[in-house]
């Protein structure tokens, strides 16, 4: 009987340990470095010691290049950026996540897109699909988080028509 209890205890301990470890490692979606502007990260290098101003406002002195076109009027900086730990994001439940896990943050509102992204349908995967290194891209690699709509782009040239001098017939 005692052996049974001990073995159960051991099993329980092991599973919690591995759970905690799994939580810390989190290699589920290995992503490249987020596309942060040069010299901007870590945010704490500037924000350290500055108390966060919780008033919703238009920024006038810093970050003036950021024009928020992402549910503007409803959302502002501190809805996603954590006011105390400036190098992290804050989820709705108060949990802090790193910049490399920003998909958790985006997924809070864009649930169906997040589901598709996890399955590899939304977004792009490159490299090796079969063993080897598969690279996942974060939402922010394609969508500017402050202005997420995909911008129109110049198309590559059309194929040469049948009468074009560069075609042989």
């Amino acid at each position, binding site marked *: 009987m005692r052996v049974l209890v001990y073995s159960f205890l051991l099993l329980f301990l092991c599973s919690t340990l591995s759970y905690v470890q799994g939580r810390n490692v989190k290699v589920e979606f290995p992503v490249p470095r987020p596309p942060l502007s040069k010299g901007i990260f870590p945010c704490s290098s500037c924000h350290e010691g500055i108390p966060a101003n919780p008033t919703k406002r238009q920024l006038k002195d810093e970050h003036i290049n950021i024009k928020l076109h992402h549910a503007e009027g409803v959302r502002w900086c501190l809805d996603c950026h954590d006011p105390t730990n400036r190098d992290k994001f804050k989820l709705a439940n108060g949990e802090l996540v790193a910049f490399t896990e920003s998909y958790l943050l985006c997924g809070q509102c864009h649930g169906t897109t997040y589901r598709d992204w996890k399955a590899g*349908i939304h977004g792009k995967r490159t490299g090796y699909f079969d063993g080897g290194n598969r690279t996942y891209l974060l939402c922010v690699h394609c969508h500017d988080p402050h202005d997420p709509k995909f911008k129109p782009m110049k198309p590559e040239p059309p*194929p040469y028509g049948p009468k074009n001098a560069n075609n042989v017939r």
Partner: protein
Amino acid sequence: MGQRTRTMSGNLYTRRTFMKILSAGFVAGLGGINATCKKVINEEFLQKYFSEMTDEEKKRVVQRLEEKYLKQYGKSTRVSFGEAKQNTLWGYGLDLSRCIGCRRCVYACVKENNNSRYKPQLHWIRVIRLKKGNLISLENAEHYYDPDKVPEEGFIYMPVQCQQCENPPCVKVCPVHATWKEPDGLVVVDYDWCIGCRYCMAACPYKGRVFNWAEPNIPKEDLNTTMHYFGNRPRMKNVVDKCTFCIQRVRSGRYPACVEACPTGTRKFGNLLDKNSEIRYLIENKRVFRLKEDLNTEPKFYYFFSL
């Protein structure tokens, strides 16, 4: 018997002597060709049908091709005969809600697959533009569109390439069996066996095949040196070629070049036999259709809408 031929010098020959001289000359000529002709050309000419080649013969073919490309392009290349993996059937997904018609895939494909850049320009992917709400009417498709910015208001874009049919009409019509379906579902062409009759191009309902009207023009510095015998090795004049889902990549577990080039993540690729693959997920969860399904070609190219 009495038929006589008078030559310029005025001598008379019977038909028999004339034929004798003629055939003697022919044999002598053949000998001359044999002596001057390079061994390489002979080997190329006498190469066996693919499925009849032994491993030793395949190795010699690889050696011959690599030597040829080194001479032609000044670059050492690696030509592979990589065979289909067990339990694989490649399938492709293309998200019509996402494609913006930017043609990045077209040029990535050209570069990866050593297509001729000009004279002739050969593209394996054709991006067609259709009026929104008019998807079924391919007659009004336009592939020479050239606006400043894409996507344009009121249009959708639909890239079309080889659909890797399970029931490929192009394979049926080939008179010399130079094209066939591999065990992993890829329809390939043996360029060394193709006679250039272009029956397959006529048979394909997707315009998935193109013809090398002239020797290809590939910039030496842009030559992709990782090659596959059925894939991106430089072709010659008078053969047909087509998309192979980048056979040189997918058989070693890499995504095709068009998948990696797409800036909007429109293109999906995976193994149809693998329950956890991306392609299976989208077939099971999205609105999917296959192009010209009514022709019973059973394409393995799935267009879908993610929105």
